[in-house]
């Protein structure tokens, strides 16, 4: 097991402008096999200039790893302007201690990311494998598609301890999302596979869904007027209304399932 500690230096975020650092080059699979000196020399984008990781982060390496699976990266400091944490990561583990900026876990294929705070927009965008755990809230477009794409998340599991903003799992094709709190409008928009569980409340869930399953355990505000009530079902001892939809996509395509209390 190897632990790579990266602590963002305070001067990076102390200016008038809070210019984001983009760390897609700092994933366990990309850092595996590198010495401390080599890690310090890995280039990261800070605004329109590329900088040495060692110039922006305090770096320390502890232990050794036999594969990327054994590499754990621990991010500390003010991470609210650190974008693309674990972007495209395939293996290993990242622990981010604090609120993280956009695209955390985007395109993630494997491994685990734990965010001990809130995650900004597009966490888990187009994710296809691995685990993403966000202790706090997730901002909009969690596990959504990239602009123009017809597929968002296709695999893996995402757990949000707090609330999620708009468009959770937009164009989701597979995998699982659990929101412990509430989800704002249009969770599961255009969903065509996979499963979303919202333990709190939701607004207009399931719009334009063509397949997949959404369960809302709290209350639904603004139920879509284009879903068909199919009957009731009991899940974990509670009674749910089962709807099919979205008929606004035509009957041929309306193969989504929405469970509402």
């Amino acid at each position, binding site marked *: 097991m190897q632990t790579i500690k990266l602590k963002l230096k305070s001067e990076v975020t102390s200016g008038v402008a809070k210019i*984001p650092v983009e760390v897609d080059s700092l994933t366990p699979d990309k850092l595996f096999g590198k010495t401390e000196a080599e890690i310090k020399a890995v280039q990261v984008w800070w605004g329109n200039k590329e900088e040495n990781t060692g110039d922006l982060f305090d770096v320390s390496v502890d232990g050794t790893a036999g594969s990327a699976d054994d590499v754990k990266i621990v991010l500390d400091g003010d991470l609210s302007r650190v974008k693309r944490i674990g972007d495209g990561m395939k293996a290993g583990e990242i622990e981010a201690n604090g609120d993280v900026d956009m695209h955390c876990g985007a395109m993630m294929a494997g491994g685990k990311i734990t965010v001990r705070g809130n995650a900004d927009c597009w966490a888990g965008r187009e994710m296809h494998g691995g685990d993403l755990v966000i202790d706090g809230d997730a901002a909009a477009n969690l596990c959504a598609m990239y602009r123009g794409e017809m597929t968002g998340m296709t695999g893996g599991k995402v757990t949000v301890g707090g609330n999620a903003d708009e468009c959770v799992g937009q164009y989701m094709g597979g995998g699982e999302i659990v929101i412990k709190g509430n989800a704002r409008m249009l969770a599961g928009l255009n969903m065509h596979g996979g499963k979303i569980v919202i333990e709190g409340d939701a607004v207009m869930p399931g719009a334009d869904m063509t397949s997949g399953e959404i369960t809302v355990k709290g209350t639904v505000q603004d139920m879509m007027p284009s879903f*068909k*009530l199919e009957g009731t079902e009991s899940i974990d001892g509670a009674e749910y209304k089962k709807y099919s939809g979205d008929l606004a996509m035509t009957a041929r395509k309306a193969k989504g399932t929405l469970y509402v209390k």
Partner: protein
Amino acid sequence: MVEVTDVVCSLCGCVCDDITVEVEDNKVTKVKRGACSVGKSKLMGHNRIKSPAIRVNGELKDCSYDEAIKKAAEILAASRRPLLYGWSSTVCEADKVGVELAEELGAVIDNTASVCHGPSVLAIQDVGLPSCTLGEVKNRADVIIYWGANPAEAHANHMKRYSYVSKGFWTEEGKKAKKLVVVDVRATKTTKMADVFLQIEQGKDYLVLSALRAILYGHADVVPDEVGGVSKKDLLETAEMMKGAKFGATFFGMGVTHTGARQNNIVNAIQMTRAAHTHTKFTITPMRGHYNVAGINQVCTWETGFPFAVDLTRGYAWYNPGELSATDLLIRQECDAALVIASDPGAHFPGESIKHLAKVPVIQIDPFPNPTTEFADVVFPAAVSGVEAEGNVYRMDNIPIRLRKLIDSEYPEDEEILKRILDEVRAIKEKESN
């Protein structure tokens, strides 16, 4: 005195091109025909920025163009995250230089679409846009829907020239043989003209649109008795009117792009058009605001691949509205310098983003002083496109039209100012790399 015909208006997205003006002593003295009152005032000209200026100790001090260009280039070349914003009220020739400057700097380039029809662009990227030119509507449309738009006040010539009131080849009887549906949260001058006015609850457009789609696809049975403040009876009547159209045209405005589900309202409106298209011909068109906001989207798209909110940090384009739109960037306090051209974030942006803009160096290029001037650090007066300078613009239906030059200007054109800044930035970078 000279009379100039076929003058093109550089105010709103209608880009009316049949205006007649009188010019005397290098001044537009009279707007005789064709322009609405707002367009008229633009053509007649008003208060101008008089001289290039640089802010020193809190005060703008007049300077030469050379000095201002040097200062602007220094600010931009030193910036780690510059924002180049505006571009919708100037011509495509200037927009092209803007993209090149952004590329040279590794800047974020964004235009006013991000605060007006950006959501429409996002919707188009989701489902496309079945649309047509405005002349098609004029010649064919017998059912017209304005959704969240108030053309009678915001695009004064729109109905007269292109839609409800106009007369064309198959629509010689004008409005007598047409139906007008208006959807809005409140009564306006436009709703008063409507055959059907659907007054919906604020923020409920999305639900109403989904209900109409379900009805158009034959699933009225699942639709509840009332949706978003509209009765099922009215929805059924509207759907029947749409199905009975020979040619239906929907226009939508900011009332629906910026409330409730925002871009997803537009996705839904386009989906409704697709549903209507299974019965008859139907089209949908955004009511674009600035005269060349369509144009900067076009230029930015063919040059970078993407229409707005483009980050050129890495030398290629990363596109992501919501992350890179000017307002997002400013609220997040990301940028450390800005160039603002032909627009006024000082008046139109949310307070939080203006607060950050006021803290960083700002370069402004504009013919007219506006609230942005009050905190700009370098100011360039420019010629007025469409009055003092010619150039290409795109109408709201993406028809390219060339603005005419009516009088000479004592000020340089936007394109020239930008080219000089770009040259100076390159000179600074050249020096740094040696």
